Structures are given as C-alpha cells and as structure tokens.
C-alpha cells in the first residue's frame, strides 16, 4: 500500500505486543498478508508513525477489537465459488441425510454469508430441522453481524446468480425480506446456527462433526500452523465425515492426508476414511 511500509522488525514488534498483552497469537501467520493488513489499518486510521500505532494498540484496550477485525480478512460472499456449493448439494448432503442429527462446523465463518448459504441448502434438502451449524470465528464483531443475518441488498443480484449457478431452483428472494437497502434472511435459518468465537490457533476441539467447512482461512497460516489445524479438524470429524477447504487450499501435504480421500477431482472436499 502506498504511504507506509512496515518493516520486518516493526511487524514482529506489533505481533509480539498482541501476544504478550492480549494473548492473541499471530506468530504463525503468513507475514506478507499480515503486513498489508497492518499497513491498511495504519492508512485507514491515519497514523503518522508505526510507533504511534503501536502505542495505541498497547494502551487502548477498546481499540483491540478493531485491530483484530482489520488485520484478519473477513471478505466473503453467499454461495462463493458456486461449483463448490453444487458439489456440497449433490455429493455431500445425500450422505449427511442418513444421520439422525447433523452437526456442521463452519470455522472462519466471518460475517456469515456462507453459513446462511449452507442453511438454505440444508433447508432445500429438507435437512435443516435436524441440523445444527456451529459458526465460529476469531472476531466477536463479525459474528455479531452474522447473527443478525442482514446483508446489503446491492449484493443480492450477485448472490442470486451464485445461488442459481450452485443448482438452486427456488426464487432466492423468498429467503429474505428487503428493507432500507438491506436483506434480512428468514429467521428459520439463523435458528439452526450457534455463533461462537473460536481461535483455530489456540482453542481445542469442542465436538464431533459430519462436515467441517473452513475456506480461505488456512491461506493466512504458515505450514506448521496449517498442519496443526488439520489435526484439529481430523480430531473433530466423525468417521466418514467431510472436510471442505478453499479453492487454493489443500490437505495434500498434511500429515493426516492418509486418513482422507478426495471426494471429487477438482473440488477441495475430502472424506475421512478412518
């Protein structure tokens, strides 16, 4: 970003402060992305020096929430990568339907767009009533947005196109009420979701799931942390459970890969075989 370049040393100092003062562990995050996020925060909040940014972070506890929200990436959309959702719809949900009760973990749920996408698909497969989605994120503030199920109305054109491309056949607009430039999704969807903070770096497994969705989160982690998270997912999956990752993420090089089988070539969905 034009304006400031945060040096390697300055970046390490900021990361160390977040850990030592607040317990947030960003040591195993990819540096180039983290640096850009801090530079973006620096520009948005109009700092004049890195020292000033550091002082604010160290001394202003209320500001921490904003720091965590801005240095992590929360960009998402409904039915993002429609072919992924088409595969979930056609090749994963039929397997899940055999369970009496379906538990799904959406890790890195951000503002919830993909969680509501999942709930809509479960509804259409007549599975929502016996499903529970655990939507977690490191950021409490994005989960607040997710809990409301209210998204900008201007996005609905794109989301409707994604929905149709994912194999959706209903009138998408029946799933939300449009008001004052916002689309509020029907409450039946949110009722089947538990929103909760969870830090993949430091928190443990908390249940067993038939499906774990974690897309475009692991790209920000280094390989060591990625592998630790894959183990956490492995420990949190039922036998024959599914793990879904982002378009450019892979389980291929992880130590748990031998316990999984790729569901379908070209899609980043693996099935646990042990």
């Amino acid at each position, binding site marked *: 970003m034009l304006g400031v370049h945060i040096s*390697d040393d300055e970046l390490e100092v900021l990361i160390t402060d977040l850990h030592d003062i607040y317990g947030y562990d960003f040591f195993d995050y990819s*540096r180039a992305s983290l640096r*850009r996020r801090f530079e973006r925060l620096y520009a948005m909040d109009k700092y004049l020096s890195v020292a000033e940014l550091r002082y604010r972070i160290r001394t202003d506890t209320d500001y921490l929430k904003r720091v965590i929200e801005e240095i992590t990436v929360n*960009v998402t959309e409904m039915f993002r990568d429609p072919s992924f959702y088409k595969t979930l719809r056609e090749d994963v949900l039929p397997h899940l339907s055999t369970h009496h009760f379906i538990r799904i973990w959406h890790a890195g749920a951000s503002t919830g767009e993909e969680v509501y996408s999942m709930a809509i698909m479960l509804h259409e497969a007549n599975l929502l009533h016996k499903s529970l989605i655990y939507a977690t994120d490191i950021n409490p503030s994005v989960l607040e947005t997710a809990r409301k199920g209210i998204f900008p109305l201007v996005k609905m054109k794109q989301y409707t196109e994604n929905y149709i491309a994912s194999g959706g056949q209903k009138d998408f607009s029946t799933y939300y009420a449009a008001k004052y430039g916002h689309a509020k999704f029907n409450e039946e969807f949110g009722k089947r979701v538990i929103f909760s903070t969870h830090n993949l770096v430091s928190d443990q497994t908390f249940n067993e799931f038939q499906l774990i969705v974690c897309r475009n989160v692991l*790209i920000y982690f*280094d*390989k060591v942390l990625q592998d630790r998270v894959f183990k956490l997912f492995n420990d949190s999956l039922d036998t024959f459970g599914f793990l879904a990752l982002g378009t450019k993420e*892979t389980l291929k090089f992880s130590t748990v890969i031998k316990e999984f089988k790729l569901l379908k070539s*070209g899609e980043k969905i693996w099935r646990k075989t042990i």
Partner: protein
Amino acid sequence: MAQDNLEREIKLLVIGGSAGSLRVLVGALPHLRQAIKFAIVVVLHRKNTREDLLTEVLAPKTVLLVKEADEKEEILPGVIYLAPADYHLLIETDHTFSLDASEKINFSRPSIDTTIETAAYAYRDTLACLLLSGANTDGVAGMKIAKSQNALIAIQAPESAEMPTMPYGASISMVIDHVLEPGEMAEFINNLS
C-alpha cells in the same frame, strides 16, 4: 538495450497487464529461451473462473513450465507462475508465495499493485517489472514502490498498446528504464539475468 541489464542480477520478473495484454504475452512466450535464470510471475486481470483456462492458453506457447502459483510455494527460476483468479498473489521475503482473498483493490483481484509492491521489498534491485496494455492504472503505484527499491522498470510502449492507460500511467509517474514494442518483449526478457 541490454546494457544496464547486464550489470545487475535479476531474480524475478513480474509482468502485469489487463485489457489487450494477453495477445502481447502470447506473442512473446514462444521466443523465450529455456535457460532463463529468474522466475516470472504473471498477474493478469481476468474474469473469476474456477477453470484454469489461462494456464491452458499460455502453457503450449513456451518451453518454460507454466503453472498457477500455489500458496507457500517456493519461487524457482525458469518457471512462469500465474496469479490465480480471485486471489491477491503476495511475495514473501523468503521468496515464497502467499495468497490473500481480501478486498479487491481498484476493482481488481488479483491486484498487480499488490504483487509488485510485495515483490519490491522481497527482491529490491533484483526485481524487474513489466507493465503491459490495460485500461486502468493498477500496477502503477506498485511500480513506484519497486522504483524506490531500485528495481528495473519496463513498460509496453503506450502507443503500441490496445489500451494505453496502464503503461502511460507508469510513464508519467516515474523514469522508465525500458519502453518496449510488443516485438521487443521476448528479447528484453531473454537478456535479463
């Protein structure tokens, strides 16, 4: 042309382009020699498609390996890496790639600025940048940072570009080391090293 190129060692060439750039690239690729000693990263604006079409279009045109950049992948000489659709491609200081799915920058993801800027700090004066045809100015800000880190700066001659905005934007923002006609691209690249 190759005079000052010989004096410096180039380890990475970043090529950025938008509308009108693909045909320039396709024209140059068949003439690249196999023994180039640096990596090439190509960042083109394109539609968000899952299919790896760009790799299929470019790979048959060159003897060099063409592949989409993977996250955490080590950047190796003699390979042409393509920025994947819908991700920003970042260069780490340890010369590996990172991917980033954050906000579009100037309506673009991948953003040419982002790749060049991160490459500038990771490679400094061993970086060369080449900005091709395009109807916006993505890449210009990144090139200014690359310039500040003593990278080699080249553009397609604006009057030769289908869409001159991008190379023209660079030309009025900094001193350009090389202004190239489409027919000169391959020779320029072959003479780097």
